[in-house]
């Protein structure tokens, strides 16, 4: 019996360790799912004669938990959003960016750098994309006079046919903005008022907080109004179907995000990582990314010239939108208020 055991173990070990490399350089990227066109990556692999291996995460927190527990070794480039970028800078997890190696930084507009208060000089992070979540309305299902603001979620006529994102900072931030406050407010009164707005006026009308499957149900007509990112909807619907969809960013403002490219302190391929970041911000390449997701050229203005599609929203729509910032200790206050909203009936 022991002999069988050791045989099995030996076989397992050989099988598992047989996967090796062939000498070419490999760039390891840890990115959001579905956030970079394959086309661009293949082009990079050819131009620099290397392999690009991408692993995916689906939320900042998930990615950060893994890095926190020591699971980040081997990755070169990671794509955290603004709040997590500032945390990673604070915790000293990142390598400095060598501007000389990334001439294409010139295309990143000043407005983005101003908004990125945690790292305005791009010392540790290079903005990848700045955008915002909005509201998608299926116009064939909604009453013609629906309100084009966050208060659409208070519309009882649409009760049971709407979803909000399962994301505390997005929802609370939009509620704070609706009330005229900052979405990074740390005033207990303001945050409580926002929580009451969500709990008393929005929540009774929505089916659920959903960040996973709502886009599919929206495409099928199960939901009439969803709080979403533009790319969620694009991925599920054809151009024809999209004609009946009204996607907008409310004028009262809301939460905005900046996703950055950062190089980890222990990255094995720092040079290749810099080359990759530069390659991404080449306006021609960047336009391919924008076209694929119908994004506006907020983060690389020169790319506009190469774009072939009309984005679902424009850079101007982002007026009044504020980047989600790290709240430090004050996040607990949000969590406490959010718990009953999210977990109870």
């Amino acid at each position: 019996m022991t002999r069988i055991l050791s045989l099995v173990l030996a076989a397992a070990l050989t099988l598992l360790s047989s996967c090796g490399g062939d000498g070419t350089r490999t760039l390891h990227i840890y990115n959001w799912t579905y956030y970079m066109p394959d086309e661009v990556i293949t082009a990079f692999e050819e131009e620099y004669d290397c392999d690009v291996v991408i692993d995916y995460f689906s939320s900042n927190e998930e990615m950060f938990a893994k890095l926190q527990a020591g699971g980040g070794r081997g990755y070169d480039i990671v794509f955290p959003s603004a709040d997590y970028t500032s945390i990673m800078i604070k915790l000293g997890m990142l390598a400095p960016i060598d501007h000389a190696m990334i001439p294409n930084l010139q295309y990143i507009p000043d407005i983005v750098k101003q908004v990125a208060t945690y790292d305005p000089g791009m010392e540790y992070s290079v903005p990848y994309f700045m955008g915002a979540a909005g509201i998608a309305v299926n116009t064939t299902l909604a009453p013609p006079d629906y309100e084009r603001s966050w208060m659409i979620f208070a519309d009882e006529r649409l009760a049971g046919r709407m979803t909000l994102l399962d994301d505390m900072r997005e929802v609370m931030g939009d509620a704070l903005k609706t009330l005229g406050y900052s979405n990074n407010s740390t005033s207990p009164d303001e945050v409580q008022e926002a929580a009451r707005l969500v709990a008393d006026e929005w929540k009774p009308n929505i089916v659920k907080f959903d960040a996973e499957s709502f886009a599919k149900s929206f495409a099928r007509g199960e939901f009439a109004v969803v709080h979403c990112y533009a790319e969620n909807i694009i991925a599920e619907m054809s151009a024809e179907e999209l004609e009946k969809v009204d996607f907008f960013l409310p004028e009262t403002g809301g939460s905005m995000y900046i996703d950055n490219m950062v190089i980890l302190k222990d990255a094995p391929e720092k040079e290749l990582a810099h080359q990759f970041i530069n390659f991404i911000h080449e306006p021609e390449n960047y336009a391919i990314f924008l076209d694929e997701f119908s994004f506006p050229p907020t983060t690389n203005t020169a790319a506009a010239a190469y774009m072939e599609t009309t984005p679902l929203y424009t850079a101007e729509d982002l007026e009044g939108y504020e980047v989600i910032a790290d709240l430090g200790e004050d996040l607990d206050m949000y969590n406490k208020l959010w718990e009953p909203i999210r977990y109870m009936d």
Partner: protein
Amino acid sequence: MRKPRKDKAGIMLAAPMGLWVTLFFAVPLLIIVTYSFLKKGLYGGVEWEPSFDAYRQVLDPDFIAVTLRTLWTSILATLTCLALALPTAYAIARSRHQTLFLFLTIIPFWTSSLIRIYAWINLLSTEGLVNNILLALGIIKEPLHLIYNLFAVILVLVYMYLPFAILPLFTAFDRFDFTLVDAARDLGSSKLGALVRIMLPSVRSGITTALVFTAIPVFGAYTVPLLVGGMGSTMVGNIIVDQVQKTRNWPLASAFSVILTLVSLIGVLTVLRGGRKDKKSKEVRT
């Protein structure tokens, strides 16, 4: 009654598993227990400062309500699983093609669970297949709300864990000597009576295993309530995941896990002890 033996063969047989579990599990478990008594780090992780905060937070009324809801949902789902699995496993065990059926039971589960859950969302939606069939048959006049509620959570949970109940029950039925039932029937028992009195006691350990295999994973379910549940469908599994992946409160997640482990262990030990006592009394009788 077989006697426990005292030579080395037993320990040789059990040692690989003992070592494996100790190395790859007992140590990580100790980490969790330690974490549950530490202070939460601002950005996840822990600070090395002893604290009972986590256990105090577990007693939050909202969390208790979610725990009770989880318990209720799990009981319903587990019992439904068992009710479906009993006759199915019986039929498989008595079939001439038992291995084929065994594979057929498990093969659907080699497709990613997420894909199957999405398929269920599709089936159960207002304009989905199930509603359309019911409408066409004239059983209902208005589409039913089949999704984003407790019903959907229980249905899909039953779906996800049914094989976990069928397989152990099959192993139990398979070694049962069916001629005993016929003998009892010849002695005048009714069909059901014979099944209940002769068969149930001897497949009891199979039932216990099936119960443990379904109840425990169902109790920790995460994806199903998240995807097919509605507003009030959150289960304990979701809270634990959220503590790690959203609120960055690792000690609270650890404390929940420690409590979950203790409760489940007490359950398992009670069931095991019950089984053992039962066996003893049976042995006395024979």
